[in-house]
């Protein structure tokens, strides 16, 4: 049924994508965020939607068919992404032998970065940024909507297991958290009341979905993400009250299994799952110490051969006692140790630079947009929401393997795009003031 309906929709989407490069670009973003194939069961399962729209968009944009004149700019984030791509290439080539996902993860990362290179070239007007945020929200928030509805329909018993495209319940929780601020931004700026109602429902369902994951890291990330939004809000106290009410509601209405799981947060030192992560961090850092330039390759720590070779090595965490070492290989379970083990210290520092640059740029966007006044309030508000998403990511993904999450790279580049908007507006404003002053001097 759903295969037939998606097939039918392609009869509209495909011609429009072929005619209009920006439409193809939006569909490239949407198919990347939703992971359409994860929801297909029939004859559409094998259709590479994302690749088809990517090829159409890239070809038509590079051939100059886009309405916006192609200006090949490489802002700071693009340069950092280029460095990451080069480092990733070095790592994939010099990886340990027999890593099962080495080439696959490298390919996914490069595809994500290629998409991001196009963003500053295509998102040149405000309506395009708005349409892009909608496409991204329709894709990334879909998972929250589905799982949130299942959570309510089951009276709170539904427990999310994860999604093939993103990983387990913890990883899906972070993906949903990254999408919530986009929904809030769209709620603030959408003109149609009906759409605002749908978006409000989407926000509530997404929060419910994060609870349904039973992810402790997800819950902490959700709390900090909401706190960031409240702090940036014009009505801070209302935000704090809503968070407190939501927290109380979660404790009262969530199932007992959820409360029991959350109570284990303070017992992390005695938690087998958490201590296994510390062991994985030790192995990842030991790999980086042995191979500081190239790292071990993508997800080297998950290879049984590599795991056994590094068994008992303390790496950079010798101060942290671990009572036992798991027999089987364990995922890195932290974006920081994941990049450290996979791409060595160079890859790790490039990754940190990308995150640091994102927060620095956010700060500059908000400051500049405030100077520009109400006309650029949208940029300031979108920057506040992107800051919340990034806080959710840096906290939540600190204990998860999500360093190559496409959505995160898109959001970071969106921050860069916002900076280009406000920077150019400030330059134009300064030029206008200077011209006025010169004219006044000449007349005087």
């Amino acid at each position, binding site marked *: *049924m*759903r295969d037939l*309906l*998606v097939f039918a*929709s392609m009869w*509209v*989407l495909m011609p*429009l*994508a072929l*005619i*209009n490069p*920006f*439409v193809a670009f*939006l*569909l490239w973003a*949407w198919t990347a965020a*939703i992971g359409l194939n994860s*929801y297909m069961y029939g004859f559409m399962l094998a259709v590479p939607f994302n690749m088809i729209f990517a090829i159409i968009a890239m070809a038509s944009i590079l051939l100059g068919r886009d*309405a*916006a*004149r192609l*200006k090949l700019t490489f802002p700071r984030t693009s340069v950092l992404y280029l460095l990451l791509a080069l480092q990733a290439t070095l790592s994939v080539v010099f990886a340990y032998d027999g890593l099962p996902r080495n080439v696959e993860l490298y390919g996914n990362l490069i595809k994500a970065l290629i998409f991001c290179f196009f963003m500053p070239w295509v998102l*040149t*007007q*405000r*309506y395009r940024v*708005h*349409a892009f945020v*909608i*496409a991204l929200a*329709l894709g990334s928030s*879909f998972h929250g*909507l*589905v799982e949130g*509805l*299942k959570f309510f*329909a089951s009276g709170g018993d539904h427990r999310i297991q994860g999604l093939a495209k993103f990983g387990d319940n913890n990883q899906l929780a972070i993906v949903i958290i990254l999408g919530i601020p986009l929904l809030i931004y769209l709620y*603030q*700026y*959408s*003109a*149609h009341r*009906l*759409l605002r109602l749908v978006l409000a429902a989407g926000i509530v369902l997404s929060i419910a979905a994060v609870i349904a994951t039973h992810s402790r890291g997800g819950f902490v990330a959700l709390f900090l993400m909401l706190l960031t939004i409240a702090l940036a809000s014009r009505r801070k106290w209302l935000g704090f009250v809503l968070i407190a009410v939501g927290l109380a509601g979660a404790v009262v209405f969530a199932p007992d299994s959820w409360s029991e799981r959350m109570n284990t947060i303070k017992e992390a030192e005695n938690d087998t799952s958490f201590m296994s992560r510390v062991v994985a961090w030790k192995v990842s850092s030991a790999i980086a110490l042995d191979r500081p330039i190239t790292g071990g390759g993508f997800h080297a720590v998950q290879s049984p051969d590599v795991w056994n070779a590094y068994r008992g090595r303390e790496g950079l965490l010798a101060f942290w006692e671990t009572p036992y070492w798991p027999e089987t290989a364990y995922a890195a379970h932290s974006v920081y140790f994941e990049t450290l083990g996979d791409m060595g210290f160079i890859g790790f520092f490039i990754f940190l630079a990308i995150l640091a640059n994102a927060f620095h740029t956010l700060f500059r966007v908000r400051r500049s947009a405030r100077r520009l006044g*109400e*006309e650029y*309030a*949208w940029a300031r*508000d979108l920057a506040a929401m992107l800051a919340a998403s990034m806080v959710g990511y840096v906290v939540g993904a600190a204990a998860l393997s999500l360093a190559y999450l496409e959505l995160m790279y898109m959001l970071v580049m969106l921050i860069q795009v916002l900076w*280009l*908007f406000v920077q*150019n*507006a400030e330059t134009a404003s300064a030029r206008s003031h200077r011209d006025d002053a010169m004219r006044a001097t000449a007349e005087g």
Partner: protein
Amino acid sequence: METGLLILDTLMVVILVIAVYRHERKPSGEGSLGLFSYKKSRVAAPARPERQGDDRA
């Protein structure tokens, strides 16, 4: 339920791309994207006509 939501999501994407396509062919005012129209600011309604070219230039 999942199928219904997937159809709804896909339908919204179809509406979005048609609105974008129409807007790119013939801009009908800033923020005018049909169902997905946006407010110029959080307090104001869409007003002035759309400019052509790059907003950032």
